[in-house]
């Protein structure tokens, strides 16, 4: 069975906002934004493979990633933190968002472990963007981007 269902913008917005509000203890709200391109300082991605094949990725600025890590670890954003802790926090954020997106899709699929990188992410040639949520936290850019892998979903 191949799933062609794509979560709506409302579904994705709800997932991002709920995960953010629950796990990231900060008084600053995550606001809707129109970004001038995707931030590329921190990228985190999980892939979903099975009845639906694609990726769920979050991109954010370094400051936004530090806000995420500080919020999850109960630290101040200006405290010194290791890249390892930032990567762990951003990776867990995409893991939870990806798991919730996978639950919206139904069917039989596997969720990968998260991969976190600094810098620009190049997607496979058959990847087609099917959803995007753009946000800002303290004017720092955060984006969720969903891709399907057309070749695998057509097979």
């Amino acid at each position, binding site marked *: 069975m191949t799933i062609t269902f794509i979560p709506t913008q409302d579904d994705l917005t709800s997932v991002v906002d709920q995960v953010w*509000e629950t796990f990231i203890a900060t008084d600053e709200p995550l606001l809707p934004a129109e970004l001038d391109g995707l931030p590329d300082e921190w990228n985190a991605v999980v892939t979903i493979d099975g009845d639906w094949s694609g990726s769920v990725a979050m991109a954010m600025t370094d400051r936004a990633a530090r806000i995420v890590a500080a919020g*999850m670890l109960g630290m101040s954003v200006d405290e010194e933190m290791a890249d390892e802790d930032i990567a762990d926090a951003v990776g867990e954020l995409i893991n939870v968002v990806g*798991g919730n997106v996978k639950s919206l899709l139904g069917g039989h699929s596997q969720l990968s*472990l998260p991969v976190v990188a600094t810098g620009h992410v190049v997607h496979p040639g058959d990847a087609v963007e099917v959803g995007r949520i753009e946000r800002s936290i303290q004017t720092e850019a955060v984006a969720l981007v969903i891709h399907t892998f057309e070749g695998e979903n057509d097979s």
Partner: protein
Amino acid sequence: MKILVADDSKVMRQIVIRTLRQAGYGGNEIVEAANGREALELAVQEAPDLVLSDWNMPEMDGIDVLESLRSAGNQVPFGFVTSEGSALMRARAESAGALFLIAKPFTADTFDAELCKVI
């Protein structure tokens, strides 16, 4: 009481432990495992009163940890705290012997609603 918290993310283990405290279970001894194989070893060595485990982990998935424990006759109370809460996964967790599956994101109230039946 002793609670084994298994998650490959250190950040998530800290959030789970913080949520346990917020839900009123802060007085319990906590043991941490950073992957599935470690969780299986500590579940035997430490004889916890409850295991709270992630599903997707390196080395060994949480469901494999649970199945290994049960096949060895270990009946430690076991619950999942995982990023996926699909009906399929809930059914698989239940048939393997899990008491509950808490989907992330969770709150202290979510924890208390499940843990009050066990602790």
